[in-house]
């Protein structure tokens, strides 16, 4: 039977099982982390975390900045790999895919760096 199989042009591995696994692992983590994030921001105290003072106080617990940085990294990974998946549906050329990948890496690193800086800044205001 396998003799029947003709060689077709080798498919581009723009996506494979590892990319997809990354997407679903971050997805599962997000369901948990985003759930916590939303509950915290809306259900803590009387009004949720609304004022500057509330937020700074919240970040004094050492677990919180760690968790938020992880959350940030995971959410950025998930959104960028997801967005990449959608763009792959448009069948970009090799060159454009390289541009997309570069752009994604820059945006991802920048977002996580910026977010981490912000979280640490807020924590330091306490």
């Amino acid at each position: 039977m396998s003799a029947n199989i003709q060689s077709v042009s080798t498919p581009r591995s723009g996506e494979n099982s590892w990319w997809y696994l990354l997407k679903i692992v971050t997805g599962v983590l997000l369901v948990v982390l985003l759930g916590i994030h939303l509950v915290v921001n809306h259900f803590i105290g009387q009004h949720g975390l609304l004022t500057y003072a509330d937020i700074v106080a919240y970040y004094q617990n050492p677990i919180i900045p760690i968790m938020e940085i992880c959350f940030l990294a995971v959410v950025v990974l998930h959104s960028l790999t997801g967005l990449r998946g959608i763009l792959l549906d448009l069948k970009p050329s090799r060159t454009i895919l390289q541009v997309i990948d570069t752009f994604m890496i820059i945006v991802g690193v920048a977002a996580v760096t910026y977010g981490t800086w912000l979280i640490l800044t807020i924590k330091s205001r306490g």
Partner: protein
Amino acid sequence: MSEKWNITLKVSRQKQGEAPHFDEYKIEVNPDEYVLDAVERVWAFIDRTVCFRHACHHSTCGACGMRVNDVEKLTCITYIRDVTHDGGTIKVEPLRNFPVVSDLAVDMGSLYRRLESVGARSVLPVPEAEIERSPSSWSADDGQYIRLADCIECGLCISACPAATTSKDYLGPAVLAGAQANGLKRNPELMNLVDSEDGVWRCHSAFECTAVCPSFVDPARRIMDLRTQIFKERVGSLFRKA
């Protein structure tokens, strides 16, 4: 005596080099005839220029797939009664994601080529056909029998799939289902083909393929099964190396 309905058949028309448009035909039909019969009536009695693909008229050849009122149907087994009413309209268009040859006829070449590339079997041993709803009693030695595969290569799934609409190289549901039925274990070389950008990961779980499949193939289930198999193999190979 059989019932008579007067319906309007709104047929997508396109000759080569022209832009597509609709022509409307008022015809008298028996509601227990099929949509394909209505199209054939138009060709036979009203407009000989209408082009459409058809052959077996009983859902074994897969030639007569069309979009009927925006849903992919195998028109030879779609009752007129089920898609309109007396005095109503049926809109008939060619399948999406295939080049139009003319009017309702599309070029299925890409699908057939891809099916060939994954070695999709056209005949297979009867027990491998995965019949969930098997006839009441089968003989013990059915294993020796050969039958034609379920997939009739009609292309409805390719037309209904939202991912296939933008990605010209996506193998598509029928092809991935063919690869699954053929078996990754038996054909390890299929692994790299389906574990790729144009393979199972292009599927976004819309399950439209299974919803429109007229022939019990359930491509979505088979794509999911391929994914599971791929994960097992890829993750397993990590441990084997270690």
